């Protein structure tokens, strides 16, 4: 899309709709449109941050990427190989690994730390799984001599998340998906783990997909930010561009909903009213029109397409306001809320 290098990972039109079963016969009553036509590219060594509120589909996207959830439609292309055509799930999983939010639930409570870290390497038949795991434990800041034979409950949250990072790296992946990986940690520990992630990225040439609800964290770690709303991508742009000027009204609301850090200029008016709508029955047209302060009649009927903000820009947005031909009365004037 916007990246000039050849992408390492490309996602095209990814879709996942979950059926809601009900009634005595367990018939499908409705579909949750968890992920609905998501596309993006990630360049080698790049970090793509994905932000959005609950139900926007960011975690489902993560699970689709490593095949923990089966996709309904769409292509996942890694290194020019398409999943299902040129490569199988097992091959994909050697190159894409994941770190989950809940550091305790993502470790087998009956297994020592070392065994957990080495499990994947053993499964993939890599040589010297134990030695490799011990070196990685040392690398993530958990001395293998002291920690190798401990159990998850004997570790703190920050230490367990280090184990999970080592476990993901034990397979020598190219891409690591971090699904709210630092969200459950205390702020002081979070900073330690972010430093570690930045170091590892440089050292191993990793590519991250960093999912979080915390804009400050995403800004710190990411090169580009992708904003999701109700299963769709509404905006994607390099960090500095989006930080300076959010093109989508939703992104703007999300940014202004961040608590102020200045006691003298506290937030006076909430940027949005109400809760995010239910993804079971998303609104027609632009899915944000029900909460959008700038919505026009066209937003209710026509679905906006993700396109560069101006010709050739790396800043893409899906909003009628930026499309002069959309029929929105304020189209082309930008956001003046």
């Amino acid at each position, binding site marked *: 899309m916007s990246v000039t290098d050849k992408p390492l990972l490309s996602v095209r039109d990814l879709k996942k709709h979950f059926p809601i079963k009900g009634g005595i016969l367990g018939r499908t009553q409705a579909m949750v449109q968890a992920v609905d036509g998501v596309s993006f590219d990630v360049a080698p060594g790049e970090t793509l941050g994905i932000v959005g509120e609950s139900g926007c589909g960011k975690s489902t996207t993560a699970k689709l990427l490593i095949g923990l959830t089966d996709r309904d439609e769409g292509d996942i292309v890694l290194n020019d190989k398409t999943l299902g055509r040129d490569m199988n799930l097992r091959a994909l999983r050697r190159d894409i690994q994941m770190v989950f939010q809940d550091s305790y639930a*993502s470790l087998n409570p009956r297994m020592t730390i070392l065994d957990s870290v080495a499990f994947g390497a053993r499964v993939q038949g890599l040589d010297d799984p134990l030695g490799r795991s011990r070196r990685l434990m040392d690398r993530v800041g958990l001395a293998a001599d002291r920690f190798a034979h401990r159990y998850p409950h004997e570790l703190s949250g920050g230490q367990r998340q280090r184990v999970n990072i080592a476990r993901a790296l034990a397979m020598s992946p190219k891409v690591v998906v971090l699904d709210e990986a630092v969200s459950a940690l205390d702020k002081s520990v979070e900073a330690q783990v972010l430093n570690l992630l930045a170091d590892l990225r440089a050292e191993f040439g990793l590519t991250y997909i960093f999912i979080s609800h915390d804009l400050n964290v995403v800004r710190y770690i990411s090169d580009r930010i992708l904003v999701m709303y109700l299963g769709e991508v509404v905006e994607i742009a390099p960090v500095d561009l989006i930080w300076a000027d959010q093109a989508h009204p939703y992104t703007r609301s999300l940014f202004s909903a961040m608590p102020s850090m200045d006691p003298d200029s506290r937030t006076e008016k909430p940027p949005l009213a109400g809760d995010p709508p239910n993804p079971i029955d998303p609104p027609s047209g632009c899915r944000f029109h029900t909460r959008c302060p700038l919505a026009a009649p066209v937003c209710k009927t026509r679905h906006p397409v993700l396109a560069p903000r101006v010709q050739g820009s790396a800043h893409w947005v899906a909003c009628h306001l930026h499309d002069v031909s959309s029929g929105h009365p304020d189209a082309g004037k930008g956001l003046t809320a």
Partner: protein
Amino acid sequence: MSQVETAVPAPTHRGYWSLVMSRLLRDPVAMACLAVLVLLVCSAIFAPWLGLADPYKGSMIARLKPLGTPGYLLGTDEQGRDMLSRLIYGGRLTLFIGLMPVVLAFFIGGALGIVAGYVGGITNTIIMRVVDVFFAFPSVLLAIAISGALGAGVLNSLVSLTIVFIPPVTRVAEAVTSGVRQLDYIDAARASGANALTVIRVHVIGNVLSPVFVYATSLTSVCMILAAGLSFLGIGVRPPEPEWGLMLNTLRSAIYVNPWLAALPGVMIFATSLCLNLLSDGLRSAMNVRD
């Protein structure tokens, strides 16, 4: 370089089960119960070498002697057979048909439950609906019905009781497995490219079997009582075999003559099942290593 975190409780380089054992050893109630059970099992196994009276040899003159009669420490039964000897010999059969069905049900039901819980979908539906059909009958009725159909005898009791206990074990195993299945470490294991069999073997079994094991130990007391009940009704062990349930039945008529004597087999059943229950409680808290 990132900071190494300190302040961690004393390192324990021990396996999970040795940790559970050491916790169990510190539980006085569980240990007392274990001691009683070990004593019962050992005396049953080594009964022939304990120098007891012949449990089958009766005496027409020494019938229904009260407790403490010289030569008959625990008295004699309605045919003049030594009660102490019969109770200890009776432990052999009673414990066997009280424990064996649960052991078998633990393995069969555990496997069914794990498969149903992990695979899910139509497999789950088939296994669980079949199990539900059996589960719909009260266990006593089911045991009586199956034993009645198969006829009396030790082996048939064993089969019928095993069938009775497979459904509850399967249910628990299925529930625990579907719970474990949701956890991120299963996802993480799948994401490392492991196939279903490896994930089940390495990550599921260990975490599912211990709660199922605890549940199964709590079933042993029910099983003992059911087994005794079958013998009591005459569709389990046949006389003159010594077995606690059967002894309870045959001594029933003596309850007005010598109530203490008639109660003895019942006391044995009660004590054993109580000990099993308490031990199972202790085991459950010992396995909860986190706190």
